[in-house]
């Protein structure tokens, strides 16, 4: 009876060994904290629906912007990095004629009155959505503010930017992508 012990023990030890090895493997392949690569499940997919009444009372629908590059920018008036980013967005919008890139802003958790004052103080003249934008932010997977999504003329999300963006970096990105596509 006790002869079976030496036969079973290595098998059990082997099972435990494989399990421990698998745990170590899991630890090695799992993403570590501090890796700040910007990813989004939306990349390479058609942008989620974005439509509504703008601050000026006009209707906006992202689908109507097909054929153009669009930067969808999520912001809030109470967010200091968003205030710092606004001049760069103004630059991007100003060079729309040459870059073919338009800006659309989506205010998150903010009032229309605050947004109106924000644009009056910091500049900017492009469509701004303020109503029902919480659900839109979730559709885009917004984590923090400001956050921007670059949408190509086919309506596909090609890049996500967390934190403030600069006009230079964005224009270079669009120029490179346009050259790559042609």
């Amino acid at each position, binding site marked *: *009876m*006790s002869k079976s*012990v030496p036969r*079973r*023990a290595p098998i*059990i030890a082997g*099972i*435990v060994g*494989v*399990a*421990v090895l*698998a*745990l170590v*493997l*899991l630890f090695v*392949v*799992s*993403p570590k904290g501090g890796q700040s690569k910007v*990813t*989004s*499940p*939306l990349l390479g997919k058609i942008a989620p629906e974005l439509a509504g009444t703008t601050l000026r009372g006009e209707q906006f629908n992202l689908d109507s912007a097909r054929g153009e590059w669009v930067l969808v920018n999520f912001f*809030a008036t109470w967010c200091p990095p968003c205030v710092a980013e606004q001049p760069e967005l103004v630059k991007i919008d100003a060079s729309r004629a040459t870059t073919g890139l338009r800006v659309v802003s989506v205010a*998150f*958790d903010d009032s229309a009155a605050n947004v109106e004052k924000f644009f009056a103080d910091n500049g900017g003249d492009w469509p701004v959505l303020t109503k029902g934008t*919480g*659900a839109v*932010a*979730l*559709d*885009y*997977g*917004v*984590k*923090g503010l400001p956050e921007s999504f670059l949408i190509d003329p086919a309506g596909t999300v090609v890049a996500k930017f967390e934190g403030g963006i600069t006009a230079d970096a964005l224009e270079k990105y669009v120029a490179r992508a346009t050259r790559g596509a042609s």
Partner: protein
Amino acid sequence: MKQPHSQRQKWWWWALMAVILVVFFISASGTSPTKGTSDDRLFAIAAQIKCVQCVGESVAGSAAPIAVQFRREISAQMKQGQTNDEILNFFADRYDGVLLTPPSTGVGSLVWVIPVIVVAAAALLLAEGLRVRRSSGAVQPLSSEDQALVEVALEQRQSGSAAKGREEPAEPDRNDDSGVNHEP
């Protein structure tokens, strides 16, 4: 008829295991609701989603604006009659790694499988160890043939050691503290 001591011990062991299992399943089944629009259900779902703006907090316990928006969305989807899984999948589709519960597919499933394997192997080892201990503890009475063999072996050993003792000179006592140097 009186039961042997080991059998009574076994009975109590299995009864204890059964009680532990029953308590475990009762406590597991009495968890959060999966239907309706109650706050209990909302917070139970929210507790399974990571707050994407916070460190080490779930959507249930966070006051961050995005966590508040997450709770609004959960509430809206509960009112629409979505199941818990459908609501959790809604967030998982939009945010990478947002669920606090590890996925049951892919590499992440190892988190679920490995502990089961380790516990099963540990139980096997324990059972094996107990079995070996029990079998080695039982003393079998010697047969008359075995007894005779043992006596012969003992005699041989005694006579062998006596002969060896006559051939080898006695070793000097190294603990001798008489002050005489025995070294050459």
